[in-house]
């Protein structure tokens, strides 16, 4: 053997420059992949964090509690306690009652009001307060003549001050609030007139106008969304399951079934806003259904969810092994009996999971509902079904959009709060779907 100089560096234990380069490239590539995953997860965290941070405030609220003497000579001049008579006193009249009561309360609790005018003090109360008081009295005329403990919202800016959204600096530039008012609010908090508490009205109250963010609630949106989900459930599930059974079990392979198949897969990809256009053109203009009714919303969402449900149901039906069908046919069942008595029950968990996921999608859908008039301002609760399906209603995601379009930043907080509620619903629905799948899924 001649000495063919084997360089000691040519060994896999001593990687040469090229191998090192290749290994470095390998490391880099791996790092790119990892960082892509991390970017995705970080985006998720930032998204959730920013919504939570700006929305949690909407669950608590600053309230002002005062003793209000409902003097009969002011509120009921006739003395009959007749509701029609009581209605003659407008909210302005009740506003005056409240103002006097508030001033007296401040004096009683020895709160220093030296540098704030009476009008400014009154402005600490929500603009909703006189109407609330009036409705209370109209609902129960026997209150007149008594002194009641009246708890109402503080103005949205005052509320924002205690949540850190409004500062003394920003108040100087704000035409709606002065630093003096905020300092007074702080003194009122010390005196126990102004308190913070959990805001139930955010969940159950109706929406409120632009100037009263503190009074805006999700009640009507809840009902509207619930009605729509009910309609989707009642229509989309039977139709979707029936269509899937036909396509999966009965349909012969021909042009006609191909047409249906192509249609379903295309519908799944049509942008949601196009369904809104369909709803507007067909249900509202052509068939004359009322605008912003939950019936129209429910129908549009039904058409949108159908492909999801059909795809899930077909997968579930396909997962049931043919031996089940064969066994049923073998003991004399008809094809229909084998499907309805055996295949369908076995596929039910899968169908249910698909349905819940479809419903969750429908619950969060916004764009088509904007087009069928659900953006309009609704202040009265829709009636009980079935007639209530035709009443104007709102929907959770549309309410969020609505609030973001308003000027007052307090509404952004409300919108984020509503998103939190919506996300909680979605998480619960998806968890139920996962649990169902884990619990009932059968591997054949």
């Amino acid at each position, binding site marked *: 053997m001649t000495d063919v100089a084997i360089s000691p560096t040519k060994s896999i234990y001593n990687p040469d420059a090229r191998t090192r380069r290749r290994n470095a490239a390998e490391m880099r590539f791996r790092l790119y992949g990892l960082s892509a995953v991390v970017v*995705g997860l970080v985006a998720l965290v930032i998204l959730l964090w920013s919504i939570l941070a700006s929305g949690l405030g909407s669950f608590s609220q600053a309230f002002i509690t005062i003793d209000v003497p409902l003097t009969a000579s002011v509120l009921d001049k006739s003395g009959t306690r007749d509701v029609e008579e009581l209605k003659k006193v407008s909210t302005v009249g009740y506003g005056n009652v409240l103002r006097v009561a508030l001033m007296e309360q401040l004096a009683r609790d020895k709160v220093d009001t030296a540098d704030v005018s009476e009008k400014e003090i009154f402005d600490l109360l929500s603009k909703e307060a006189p109407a609330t008081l009036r409705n209370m009295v109209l609902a129960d005329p026997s209150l007149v003549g008594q002194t009641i403990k009246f708890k109402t919202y503080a103005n949205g800016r005052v509320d924002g001050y205690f949540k850190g959204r409004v500062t003394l600096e920003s108040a100087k530039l704000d035409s709606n609030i002065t630093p003096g008012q905020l300092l007074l609010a702080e003194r009122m908090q010390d005196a126990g007139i102004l308190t913070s508490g959990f805001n139930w009205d955010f969940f159950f109250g109706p929406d409120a106008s632009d100037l009263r963010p503190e009074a805006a609630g999700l009640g009507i949106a809840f009902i509207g969304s619930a009605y729509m989900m009910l309609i989707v459930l009642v229509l989309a599930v039977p139709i979707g399951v029936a269509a899937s059974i036909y396509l999966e079990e009965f349909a012969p392979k021909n042009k006609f079934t191909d*047409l249906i198949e192509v249609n379903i897969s295309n519908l799944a990809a049509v942008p949601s806003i196009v369904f809104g256009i369909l709803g507007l053109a067909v249900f509202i203009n052509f068939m004359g259904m009322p605008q912003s009714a939950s019936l129209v919303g429910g129908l549009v969402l039904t058409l949108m969810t159908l*492909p999801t449900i059909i795809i899930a149901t077909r997968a579930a039906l396909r997962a049931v092994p043919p031996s089940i069908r064969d066994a049923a046919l073998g003991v004399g069942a008809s094809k229909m009996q084998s499907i309805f008595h055996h295949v369908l029950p076995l596929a039910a968990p899968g169908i249910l999971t698909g349905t819940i996921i479809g419903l969750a999608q429908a619950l969060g859908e*916004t764009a088509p509902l904007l087009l069928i008039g659900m953006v309009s301002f609704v202040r009265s609760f829709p009636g009980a079904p079935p007639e209530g399906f035709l009443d104007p209603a709102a929907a959770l995601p549309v309410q969020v959009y609505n609030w973001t379009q308003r000027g007052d930043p307090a509404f952004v907080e409300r*919108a984020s709060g509503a998103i939190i509620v919506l996300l909680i619903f979605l998480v619960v629905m998806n968890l139920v779907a996962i649990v169902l799948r884990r619990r009932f899924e059968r591997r054949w």
Partner: protein
Amino acid sequence: MSLGALLLIVIVLAILGAVAGRRRALGLVGGDKRALHSLPGHYGQVVFLFTAVPALVLTGLWLFLAPLLIDRMSSESLVGSSLTDDTAMTLVMTDVRRIARGLEVLSANGSLSESDISQMRADFSNVRVRMAEAGVALGADVGPQVFEAAKVYRDYSNTSRVLMNIAVIAVAIAGLFWSLTRISKDYRARNASEKFTVVMLIAASLVAVLTTFGIVFSLVFETYNFFRMHSAADFFFGLVWNPQFRGGSELGILPLLWGTFYVSFVALLFAVPIGLLAAIYMAEYASKPMRSVAKPLLELLAGIPTIVYGLFALITVGPFLRDYFAQPLGLGNSSSSVLTAGIVMGIMLIPFVSSLSDDIINAVPQSLRDGAYGLGSTRSETIRQVVMPAALPGIVGAVLLAASRAIGETMIVVMGAGAAAKLGLNPLEAMTTVTVKIVSQLTGDTEFASPETLVAFALGLTLFVFTLGLNIVALYIVRKYREQYE
């Protein structure tokens, strides 16, 4: 009788029929089930189906067709007035319908009797005040002719309601007795009921076809109306989007298409590399525990409603980009911009791209990888030089699907991209998209017959054609690719 009560009656009739059918079948053979062709329950099923289904179909058809007929008949009473052209007519008919509904409300809550209504004249009693009581706000003062038409309309709809009730119940009863009389010992009840069921299953699967048809029909029809009022060339080639409520709008689609494609491009620029790399990492590198945690978390992004992304763009990403990029660089000072919408939409599309690519990468046969490893390539070399080229058609398909999603996306651009229709290159400026304009032209108080409203349908049709085209191409590519390795 309300609709609910009518439906309840039909269902009760059908259930009674089912019980009677079963009884009758058993009675015919003296209780000996074996003598029957089918199970006793099948006889009941047949009666149930023949009672309920025709009646319910009739109800649906009636509710669908009657308003059209009533519209036509009550608008005849407006003939001879000055309203000759179609668009004015549709507007008046809306008023007619609303007044009729208001009258119905008033008579239902007892504040107006029938004779009050027939004596009510638009010129005498103040219709507007009464209508406001019923929750119907009328714009202009109502002419006597319109009010008369509304009364006619109301009469017709009340008559139609009564007729419908009678007809539906009659059909239900007829179906009930007809199917009962058909029952005999040898009647093949199971075959009949199953045939009926199959027909219903087919009808259910036709809903999807009907929906597509409805979408295409409504879009094409209204777009045609739009092009009668506005020139098609101006729409497709116009460089200015400037709707005016007094007419004379310039409605060119190009600025909107530009905005749409710009935003989608930014979104894809963001989503495709991240989604693809994440998919590669998940498929080829990630350990099992990591995959089981990270994958569902990433897919969580896909389950979040778009309104949440919209709000994220509005309150977080928009102000951030404005304060740290746009203003310091002097490139603009609006928080809604192409970049805002693009980035947020990109985040939304990451799981979409990654789960599609994941499927596609996993479909590449292991033998290709093994071959590459056998030749001594590293994992990344295998991925870049073997797996990626093999998966490329599928990935192109996935990107096209993501693009179609991006083009059709609405809430993120409504809340993040802005409303100004511009043909510009600056990504930190607000621009607008097709979907934003569909929303803005169709929400709020819209006069249905104006080109400013109808243009939304032309925009919708454009959007539909684009997304459908992209989808068909993408699905074709993906399918072709799948077949390659099967």
